[in-house]
């Protein structure tokens, strides 16, 4: 993203309680994860020449398009408040394991749980068993700090250069977060992390998760019952793996402020799902 000068491998490492902190410099490029489909089916084999990116209406030169071969960083961000207990907790654990089962060599995963307390339960690493173990230990208790939990998970996603997918599950509304939805939505606009969220249908609309997934270019699933969680989590990772990573260095646009993005594919019938823009500067 524009203006950001460093990436860190630090957080995951720090959580693993040891390795040397490392910083890598980064080109001021913009990365956009884009899902390209035709009648719901991913279109494969596209190249940079097939993409057209408008940044605040100014056409950009797409420098890099990658598909599938880039490892994923999957950050599970799961509600462990009081309402998640019994069957629902079992379903959630199954869903987490289902997502982890889809990981491939080079992929990494992490687990953040939240009730009133946000817990970095398993650091970002290639050892999925650590996440599985942490999932098995997690228990539902307390209130819901959804917004705080989402932010912590997003920052873990930002802590590594890999493509970050954050999968958020919550069955309730935020009741005790310190951070506000506008602040975290702002943070999401500055982040490359793509957020997919799963909530349980109630009479109250999950507005925060809806806005969050929209700004990050992800998707919101509202389930009738948590028995469908495992298939949903698996479907999310599958879909994310079939997204293109489009990269360009912005030219001819202001450095700061909101940048409206329009990502198109020069092929009839193609539908593109990508984040609607990004925020640069403070």
């Amino acid at each position: 993203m524009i203006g950001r000068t460093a990436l860190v491998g630090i957080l995951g490492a720090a959580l693993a309680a040891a390795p040397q902190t490392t910083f890598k410099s980064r080109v001021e490029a913009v990365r956009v994860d884009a899902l390209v489909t035709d009648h719901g089916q991913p279109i494969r084999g596209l190249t940079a020449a097939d993409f057209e990116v408008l940044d605040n209406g100014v056409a950009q030169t797409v420098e890099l398009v990658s598909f599938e071969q880039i490892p994923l960083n999957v950050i599970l961000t799961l509600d462990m408040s009081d309402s998640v207990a019994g069957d629902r907790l079992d379903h959630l654990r199954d869903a987490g394991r289902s997502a982890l089962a889809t990981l491939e060599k080079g992929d990494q995963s992490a687990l953040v749980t939240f009730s009133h307390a946000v817990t970095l339960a398993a650091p970002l690493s290639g050892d999925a068993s650590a996440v599985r173990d942490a999932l098995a230990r997690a228990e539902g208790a307390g209130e819901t700090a959804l917004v705080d939990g989402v932010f912590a998970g997003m920052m873990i996603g930002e802590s590594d250069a890999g493509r970050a997918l954050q999968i958020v599950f919550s069955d309730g509304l935020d009741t005790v977060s310190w951070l506000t939805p506008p602040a975290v939505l702002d943070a999401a606009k500055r982040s490359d992390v793509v957020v997919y969220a799963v909530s349980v249908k109630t009479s109250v609309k999950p507005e925060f998760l809806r806005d969050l997934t929209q700004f990050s270019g992800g998707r919101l699933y509202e389930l009738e019952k948590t028995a469908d969680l495992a298939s949903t989590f698996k479907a999310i990772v599958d879909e994310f793996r079939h997204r293109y990573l489009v990269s360009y260095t912005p030219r001819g646009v202001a450095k700061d402020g909101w940048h409206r993005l329009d990502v198109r594919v020069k092929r009839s019938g193609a539908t593109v799902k990508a984040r609607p823009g990004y925020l640069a500067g403070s």
Partner: protein
Amino acid sequence: MIRLALAVMMTLQAPGAKFSAPPLTMSAGDIERVKLWIEAMVDHRPGETDASLETVRLWSNDDLRTLWINASVLLARMHEEQGKSFSFSIAGVHIGNSKTNVYTVESDGKTREIHYTADQSRQMRSLACAIAGNVHCVGVPTPGPRAAELQELLRIADRVHESGDQNFVLRRGAMLHADIATGALMPAPATASAAFPAPRQMRLQMFDGLETDRHEVAIHWILGRLLLDAVTPAGKKSPAAGADGFVRAWYRATAAWMQKGEDFDTVHVARAVTLFPNDPDLLFLAGCEHEAFASPAIAAAVAVAVPPKDFGFDIGSPRAELDFAEAYFRRALKSQPSMMEARLHLGHVLLEQRRFNDAALMLRDAAQDDGARQYYRWLFLGTAEEGIARYDAAAQAYRRASALQPGTQAPLMALSELAWRRHDIAAVSRELQRLAALSPDPLTRSDPWWTYHTSAGHDADQLLDAVRDRLREPEAAR
């Protein structure tokens, strides 16, 4: 500490029944209950779970509602015996003027008569004389079936008379009902009869933004308020609860208790500020109540809860509640400009309204004398400074909050979010490392932020004790 549950009282907004029914009559047991009630009020030792408290606590809600009707009549007669006359209006039901043995319940333009027999009317007069401390009109305990009862009433009248306080029973009764309502043993009585012309209240209990229970509650707070509405302060000739120091202290303590336990009763606090419109402490607590109503924990549950027929919450949208809170805090500060706790809460309300500059101005000059409140102040000030892009000042404020409460989550979230806003990746990482170092067991974690809305009730226990102490003091001290 984490929140266990919170509750909001639903209040009868219009009586369910159209009171065109036949006149209501009282049984001998109903009148006997009035006598037992008076004895309990007089004999209860404030703050203790004694036999008097147990007697009243175990009455059903319909028993208490019948008592409410008789108590209203009794209080009117008490003042008649003192040569005064007034009527009551509370919770949508009105007790009008008396004829000989007939009283009228009036509500919503509908009326229903209450008929006492001649004997019951005599008994009520004796009871009224007793609580008025008028030993001469209680009656003469000549040998007969009422002798023991009259002896007991004379004992009460003597005690009231000796206390030198014509409101002796009223004050002790209000404390008895407060002791029951604030006690851990308070029962959840069965649903009351909707057709019965007396107030009702329901409690909506919630946790984590969801309704967990709803039930009819015993009307102890309503009875307490009814008693205190009849208080005639020293030097006054008619009831003037708003001029009485004990009444003020009772409302302040009980409203603080409600705030501390997040057991909210809008009618209670509204009555307090109606009686004492310029009292900074009560205005402050009213502001805190509305501030809490705007919080997600309550707003989310109330937004989806459907009250039973004829009941309502008296809770508006979060935006409206914040406006109410702001107005009350400003009134509190107008009455007492040095009230730093009001500045703190007003600052938070302004933040919620996203008026960051106003919030910063308020909070910079809101020094607190308590650890948790200092923590809130620095957290809130950090957010206000961040909102107006004074990032260094914001970071400094958050760090001060973190230093005050080192094991807490909120300042770490704030600092990492601020660092992300400033593209300071190393700082983001540093703060999240500190977050990662907190206990993985949520139940062992603590953050005053999680119980912010209870904080205004921090002195509730001391205030309640102080009210109880006043009942042991002579009238001159009240």
